[in-house]
């Protein structure tokens, strides 16, 4: 039985990991390096990311490139929630990993993992296109380690602990909400033998 599951796993994950379609979410300087990666010298299409979809409904990877401010945060959360499962996030650039050089600014969110779950962190300011391709390869390796028995957990998704305020342009804390994140983040070796069926991975 396990032989059947693991061979189905192999083909299923191989097909998914070799055709990840990202979504254009370029805010700032890292966006230009993302465009250079899709251009002729560092071709991202040879890794399977043939097209950059403009709408979140047709994409399965959100490369968040650029600084996220308080005004932009509701848009980012809405876009992430509109993407269909299974979805992945690469935090590209120092600003998205933890604020970058703007940590002491009044209007910058210090890292997008306060809002959405992140799979791969890619520091550097801005990362070279080779670094972005390296992070894509890491993501592909991570996808190949998944199994279809745990599929239900990935569909459960991420419930954020933030909500919109009454003017609908700022994200504020929503007290009483528990964040559920099903082990999509973490290091590469963790995952298959860990029992995640008990409940949320951590409380917010």
């Amino acid at each position, binding site marked *: 039985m396990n032989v059947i599951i693991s061979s189905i796993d192999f083909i299923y994950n191989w097909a998914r990991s070799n055709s990840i379609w990202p979504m*254009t*979410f*370029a*805010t*700032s*300087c890292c*966006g*230009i*390096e993302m*465009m*250079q990666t899709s*251009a*002729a*010298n560092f071709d991202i299409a040879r890794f399977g990311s043939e097209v*950059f979809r*403009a709408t979140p409904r047709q994409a399965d990877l959100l490369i968040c490139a*650029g*600084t996220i*401010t308080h*005004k*932009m945060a509701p*848009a980012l959360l809405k*876009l992430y929630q509109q993407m269909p499962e299974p979805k992945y996030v690469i935090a590209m650039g120092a600003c998205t990993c933890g604020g970058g*050089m*703007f940590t*002491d*600014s*009044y*209007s*910058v969110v210090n890292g997008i993992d306060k809002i959405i779950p992140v799979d791969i962190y890619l520091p550097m*300011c*801005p990362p*070279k296109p080779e670094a972005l391709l390296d992070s894509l390869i890491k993501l592909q390796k991570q996808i190949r380690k998944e199994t279809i028995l745990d599929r239900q957990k990935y569909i459960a998704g991420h419930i954020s602990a933030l909500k919109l305020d009454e003017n609908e342009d700022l994200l504020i804390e929503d007290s009483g909400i528990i964040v559920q994140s099903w082990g999509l983040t973490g290091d590469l070796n963790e995952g298959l033998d860990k029992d995640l069926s008990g409940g949320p991975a951590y409380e917010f």
Partner: protein
Amino acid sequence: MMKGWLGMTNQSSTKMKINIGPQHPSTHGVLRLVLELDGEIIKSCEPVIGYLHRGMEKMAENRTYLQYLPTVDRIDYLGGFFDAYAFCDAVENLAQIELTKRTKYIRILTMEMNRLSSHLLWLGTFLLDMGATSPLFYTFRDREEILSLFEELTGQRMMYNYYTFGGVRHDVSNIWLRKVAEFVKKMPKKIKDYENIITDNPIFVTRTKDIGVISKHAALQYSITGPNLRASGINVDYRKQNPYLVYDKLDFEVPTAENGDSFDRYALRIAEMRECLKIISQCVAWLKVNPEEVISSVKQPMLKVPEGEFISNVEAPRGVCSCYVKSDGTGRPYRVKWRTGSYYAVQILPKLLENSIYPDLMAIFGSLDVILPEVDR
């Protein structure tokens, strides 16, 4: 009879409010446009900015002059050298620091190469927004060569951190200058290739001729500068009018156009690319035979600027970039204010879009060459 069919007479259609949201496949950045459409005619447009406001001006008050210098590259990331030069110029004038002639030539060389790479990216993305996908790959390929030259010189592809107060970080070598000269030799043919496929293309000409005309009066009222102003017929270039560095010793022309429509703005930037190549080859020829000291003699981390204020003006690829620095005698600036060219191009956009049709939106907006981090700072 045919007119009345399907109701295509003068019935008042319901107006529709469309939000071109902060995330969109266009490449200018996070600008939100709230359009009111009547069928296909744009009745009103309201730009909403501020999605990338990072607080550059407040951050300056918390950092020393040397700590603030790498941050300045990120204001206009496609023209990082111009903003760094504006800040360095203001501080050097306040602190009375002199530059050697070789430093000035190196600064002009790097700034003009940066202008060339900025215009190349603008060309690719302008045509991508209008629907043509192939020029993007050609211009990005050429831009890669400039970026690898910069990486060899400064260590970084985009945010260079190369200027210091009173000089540059290290000298340029003759090997690097030879590579720049080879690059300059093969560029004119490539610019001719771009013109061959774009300028006579009937679709491009129909979409951009007489679209988005900025009159001379409107350009002055809305404080438009740079190539957008010169396309309307007013010949003002700060490199010629108030020459800074050694621009008065270099031989180049400033192209202008007459009509002020999108096609003229495109043709003007192509002509500007050719002038950049002229300036670059003159600088390379001078730098090869004139060795001099370029490392600054000022102790950078301890720089204490005397009290005063100064405004420096630079001709950046998108307009005039002004930097106001007010110092109170300590090692940190008291107030820094940035004035960039794209800020006013966004302000004139609703006026240009009045009573035009929806497909003209990208033809007008793309030709204005707007970069949102410059607008929001």
